[in-house]
């Protein structure tokens, strides 16, 4: 009984964010940055989306008219959306290349406004469990877990910026810091470097599992691709 109480107390301490209290990173941004995302004519990610449209027409449209709704259901069983796209194209493009980001942004934008569907089912379960373990594992020289910032301290300041809840609702994102488009894996790299951990290589299963767990955590939230973030 005492052990059960101790476990319960631990679970309460590192509680996941209640569904109703979840907020997209969009809500933590300044008015001007939100406006940059909202205006389709001036959102700089548009430059990638248009490239993606051209690439889609020349590479994908013989099989797919569109891929509406697909981005809301990825990653699936350990495969991320950009991996799935690149597999279909016989790994034509490098991770984080302009072409792969453009295609992924174009495909994901077709699901803009749709709720994220991530199911804790048999196919996804092992990946989600490993992703969750990564999220709660302390790592790096700062010995921090993702959850310590993004579950326990969201809304507070880390230096000059507000800590968001880490919902991957708008990837690939145009990050002002990058001055360009980037994937959720690039964002994970930044977090890992932030806690002074060694980042994984692009395409590592750990990244996809973590993305899956974050998508499960963000289930039901609306996709915003292409989002703008500071």
């Amino acid at each position, binding site marked *: 009984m005492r052990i059960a109480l101790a476990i319960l107390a631990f679970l309460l301490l590192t509680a996941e964010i209640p569904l109703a209290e979840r907020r997209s990173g969009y809500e933590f941004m300044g008015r001007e940055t939100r406006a940059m995302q909202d205006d389709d*004519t*001036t959102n*700089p990610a*548009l*430059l990638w989306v*248009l*490239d993606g449209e051209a690439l889609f027409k020349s590479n994908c449209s013989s099989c797919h008219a569109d891929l509406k709704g697909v981005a809301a259901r990825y990653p699936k069983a350990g495969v991320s959306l950009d991996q799935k796209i690149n597999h279909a194209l016989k790994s034509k493009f490098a991770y984080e290349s*302009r*072409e792969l980001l*453009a295609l992924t942004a174009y495909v994901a934008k077709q699901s803009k406004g749709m709720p994220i569907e991530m199911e804790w089912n048999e196919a996804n379960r092992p990946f989600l469990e490993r992703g969750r373990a990564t999220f709660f594992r302390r790592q790096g020289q700062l010995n921090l877990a993702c959850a310590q910032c993004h579950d326990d301290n969201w809304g507070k300041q880390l230096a000059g910026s507000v800590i968001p809840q880490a919902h991957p609702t708008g990837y690939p994102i145009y990050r002002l810091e990058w*001055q*360009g488009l980037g994937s959720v894996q690039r964002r994970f790299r930044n977090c890992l470097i932030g806690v002074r951990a060694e980042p994984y290589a692009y395409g590592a299963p750990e990244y996809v599992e973590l993305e899956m767990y974050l998508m499960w955590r963000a289930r039901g939230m609306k996709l915003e691709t292409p989002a703008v973030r500071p």
Partner: protein
Amino acid sequence: MAARVVVNVPATAKRGEVIEIRTLAGHEMETGFRRTDRGVLIPRDIITRFVCTYNGVEVFSADLHPAMAANPLISFTTIATESGTLEFKWTGDNGYSATQSAAINVT
């Protein structure tokens, strides 16, 4: 991939109406002040000039400097005088050049 530029011009306007034009150019606007992690200076590579003509007459131009954000947005206004074509041209370092045009129907 080729230089990507986007312009947003209303397709139709009333004669005398002030219309807003928004332009985006895909360009890193490398400042010439950044260094690699080995300390090597990355040379400047920016768009330096933007010109908009309306049926061949220049109505707006701009000189751009390294303090312009990457993928520069330039938004300005012009009076819809007559139907025709607006042409946009960006030029810069290392022979960069991009053009785009948009038709407008003025009633």
